[in-house]
């Protein structure tokens, strides 16, 4: 057995996890190897020093102090729950407000635009030539001229139209 294997066995033996056969092999190696003997005593010494000599008791009234803290936690938990939700509600309201604002900006109704006469005719599906045809159909030249003059003035006030 080499020293490396001996150290592995040695560490296992500290936990009592070495079977009888391997323990005998380790023992035989240790008897002839001063270096591993030294390691053995060092490990055993370290282990004895690692453990505290005594472990004290927890401070008095451990359970009572703990249960009081838990009770306090339970008491404040609903309040904390609502505080948490209030924070969320504020954030959600703000987000909704911003979304609403953005939607208004994006989809706001366009202001009515001045529509030309041709566009109005098209929108109202009227035949612009209908009126011109009725003017041109006039037999009297005077009537025809007067109607043309009034048509050119505009068609807003139909009452001012010349009607023969």
């Amino acid at each position, binding site marked *: 057995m080499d020293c490396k294997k001996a150290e592995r066995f040695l560490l*296992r033996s500290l936990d009592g996890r070495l079977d009888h056969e391997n323990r005998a092999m380790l023992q035989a190696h240790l008897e002839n190897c001063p270096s591993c003997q030294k390691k053995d005593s*060092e490990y055993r010494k*370290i282990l004895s020093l690692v453990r505290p000599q005594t472990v004290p*008791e*927890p401070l008095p009234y*451990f*359970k009572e102090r703990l*249960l009081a803290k*838990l009770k306090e*936690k339970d008491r404040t938990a609903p309040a904390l729950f609502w505080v948490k939700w209030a924070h969320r509600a504020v954030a959600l309201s703000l987000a909704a407000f911003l979304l609403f604002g953005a939607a208004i900006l994006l989809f706001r109704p366009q202001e009515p635009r001045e529509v030309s006469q041709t566009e109005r005719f098209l929108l109202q599906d009227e035949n612009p030539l209908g009126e011109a045809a009725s003017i041109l159909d006039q037999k009297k030249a005077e009537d025809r001229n007067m109607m043309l003059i009034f048509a050119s003035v505009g068609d807003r006030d139909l009452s001012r139209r010349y009607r023969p």
Partner: protein
Amino acid sequence: MDEKELIRRSQAGDGEAFGVLVERYKGKVFSLAYGFTRDRVAADDLAQEVFIKAYVSLSKFQAKSGFGTWLYRVAVNHIKDYLRKNKRRMKEIPLEKAGDRALASSDLGPEEQRLREGEREIVQAALARLPEKYLVILTLRDIDGLSYEDISGILKLSPGTVDSRLHRARRKLREKLTGRLIRQGGEHGL
């Protein structure tokens, strides 16, 4: 009362049932915390925090492992966080100076006891300088004396990994102490 029933009632918010569980496990949790801190007050605070954490997350306990193993896992994770936050403070005493206070003190009693205290201090300082995973496994096995199977369950490691990690941790600790205990203790062999 049966532990399963106590857990079920604690999960339903029964503080009294949880109190019984606290009585059963407070010694173990405190001892674990003390093994890491060597400070009674800090260990007491840590143990209280561990139980509060356990109470809050008790609904997540699904009895896949024993309650004790689960509680130890909560404790180890909490203590690891504590150690990370207090890393600097834990390494406060330089390894070269560790043991001097005990050795220089005249009110510790017989010479042998003073030497022993000095050596313990040196070992503590060396332990505090180990990587966290080695410190945890050494504390669980060599200080708290938990079985390989328990450590395997708590740290969620295979028994083979527990074995190899523990051996590496002991080797590292021995390396850190080689020369230190010879200088301090003289006749003690290290």
